[in-house]
C-alpha cells in the first residue's frame, strides 16, 4: 500500500479572503487578452492547412498516363468495416489495345460517404495503390443518393498521383518484346 499523505490546505491570507486582489488580477488577465490577435480561422474564406497523410475522403486515382488504376479486386469492399464500398467488376474490352492487358476494371465503383468512417483500411489494403484518402474533408448533399459517390466523381476527386511501379507498362513492354514472348 502506498502511503497516503494528507496535504494540509494552506489557510487563506486576509487579502485572499476578500477575493478582491484575485478578482482584480483575473480581470487584468482577461483585459490584456482583449488586445491580442484573434486566433479564429474564418473557415469558408480561409482554409486550414491540411497536413500530409491526412485521411479525408476516399478517392480513386489515375496513373500519370490518365488510366484508372483500380482493377476492381474488391479487397476494399471486403475490408470496409461499415460496408460503404460497392464495386461491380467488369472486363476490359480486348480491342482496347492500350489497356487490354490490364483485363479488369470497375464498371461501377460506389462509396457511400454517409457510411464511410474514414478509417483508411481501403487505402491500406489496395494492391494497386488506386484508392487514397486525400485532403477533401467537407462533404454535403441534399439527398442520401447524392452522397453515394460513383466512379466518375471519385476519379475526379482523386486526380492523378505518381505511380512508382509502372507495373502495367513494364508488362506491356515485355509482351511486345518478342525476345521474351513465345
Amino acid at each position, binding site marked *: 500500500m502506498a502511503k497516503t499523505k494528507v496535504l494540509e490546505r494552506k489557510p487563506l491570507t486576509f487579502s485572499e479572503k476578500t477575493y478582491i486582489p484575485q478578482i482584480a488580477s483575473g480581470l487584468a488577465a482577461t483585459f490584456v487578452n482583449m488586445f491580442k490577435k484573434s486566433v*479564429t480561422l474564418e473557415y469558408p474564406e480561409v482554409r486550414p492547412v491540411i497536413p500530409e497523410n491526412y485521411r479525408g475522403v476516399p478517392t480513386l486515382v489515375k496513373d500519370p498516363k490518365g488510366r484508372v488504376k483500380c482493377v476492381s479486386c474488391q479487397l476494399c469492399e471486403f475490408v470496409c468495416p461499415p460496408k460503404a464500398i460497392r464495386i461491380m467488376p467488369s472486363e476490359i474490352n480486348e480491342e482496347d489495345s492500350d489497356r487490354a492487358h490490364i483485363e479488369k476494371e470497375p464498371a461501377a465503383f460506389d462509396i457511400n460517404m454517409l457510411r464511410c468512417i474514414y478509417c483508411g483500411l481501403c487505402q491500406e489494403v489496395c494492391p494497386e495503390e488506386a484508392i487514397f484518402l486525400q485532403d477533401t474533408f467537407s462533404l454535403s448533399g441534399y439527398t442520401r443518393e447524392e452522397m453515394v459517390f460513383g466512379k466518375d466523381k471519385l476519379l475526379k476527386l482523386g486526380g492523378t498521383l505518381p505511380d512508382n511501379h509502372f507495373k502495367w507498362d513494364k508488362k506491356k513492354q515485355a509482351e511486345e518484346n518478342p525476345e521474351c514472348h513465345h
Partner: protein
Amino acid sequence: MSFLDYLLPVLYALAMVGVFMTLCAYSVLAERKVCSLIQRRVGPNRAKIPIVGHIPIIGKILTRLGIFHPAADGLKFLFKEEITPQHVRIGYYYLAPIIALAPALTTMVVLPFGRYIDVNGMVQPIALANIDVGILFILAVSSLGVYGIVLAGWASNSKYPFLGAIRSTAQMISYELAMGLSILPVFLWAASPGTDYGLSLFGVVLAQQGLWLIIWQPISALIFLVAIFAETNRLPFDMAESETDLVGGFHTEYGAFKFGLFFVAEYAHIIMGSALFVLLFLGGWHFLPGVADPWPDGLLGILCSISWFMLKIFFMIFFFIWMRWSMPRFRYDQVMHLGWKILLPLAVANFVFYIFLIAFIDNLNY
C-alpha cells in the same frame, strides 16, 4: 390640461422604452463581442441586411462589427417554433416572462438620466417621473423581478427550473438586505440638513457635484456592486441559470420568444443596475470628481449631460460583461456565506460607521 399634455408623456414613455429596448439588444451584442475578444475570437460578424450591409466600406465594417446581429437574434426568437411542454401550468408559464421583464421596464420611470436648467435657473432632472422616494420605488419594484423567476421555475413543473427558482429566491432575499443597508449611508450623506430631497435620486446626484460618493463611501459602493451582481443573477452569482448543473435553470422549459423575454429582462436588469450604480456612486451626469461640469447652457448642455450619463452606463455594462467572462461561478453555499456572513455584517458596520461619521461632521458644522 390640453390634449398635448396627455400625449407628450405617452410619447416620452414610448421613446424611453424604445431606447431602453435597443440598449438591451445591443448589450447582448456587446456581451457576445466582448466575450469573443476576451477569448481571442472574432465574434458575430456575418449577419447582413440588404442595402445597408452592401454599402462599400461602411457596410463591411458594420457587418464585421456584428451590428445587424441583434435584429437577426430578435427575428429568430420571433419566428422560432413556439413550443409549450405538456406538463407546465399554462397560465403561470406564460405569465412568468412578462413578470420578469415588466419590473425592469417600470423602474426606469423614476430614473433621472440628465438635467436641465428651468426658467428659474434651477437645475431640474430629466425623468419620466421625478418622485421624492425614487430609490424606494426602485427597490420595491425591481424586487418583483424575482417573481418572474420563481413563477417560471414553479410553472415549468420540472426539477431543474424548480431548483433554479428556489436558489434565485434565497439569493435575492439574502442580497437585498445587504443592498438596502449599503445605500442607507448614501442617502444619509446626500440628504444633509437644509435640503429637502430625502430619498430622491436626483438629490443624490446633486450631492455629488464635488466628489463622487464612491470616493466618500467605497465600502458602500463595493457592497452595492456585489449585491447588484447578485440581484441581476449575473456571473459569478448566476445560481438561477447555472447551466452546468441545472441545464438552464428557470428557463429550461422555455423557448422561442418566451425565452427571448427572459433574455431581454436579464439585460434590462443589468442596465437598470448600472444606471443605479452610476447615479448613486459615480456622480450621475457630473463630469469628473472635483471638476465642475463643463456642459454649456441650453439644449446642448442637456444632451451633454445625458451622453455623459450614458457613457458611464456603458462602462458599467462593459464591467458587468468583463466580470462575467473573467470569473467562475460561486458554489451555492459560498453565495449564501458571502451574503449572510460577510456582506450583511459589513453593511451593518458600514451603516453604523457612517451614522457616527455624519453625526460628527454635522456637529462640527454647527
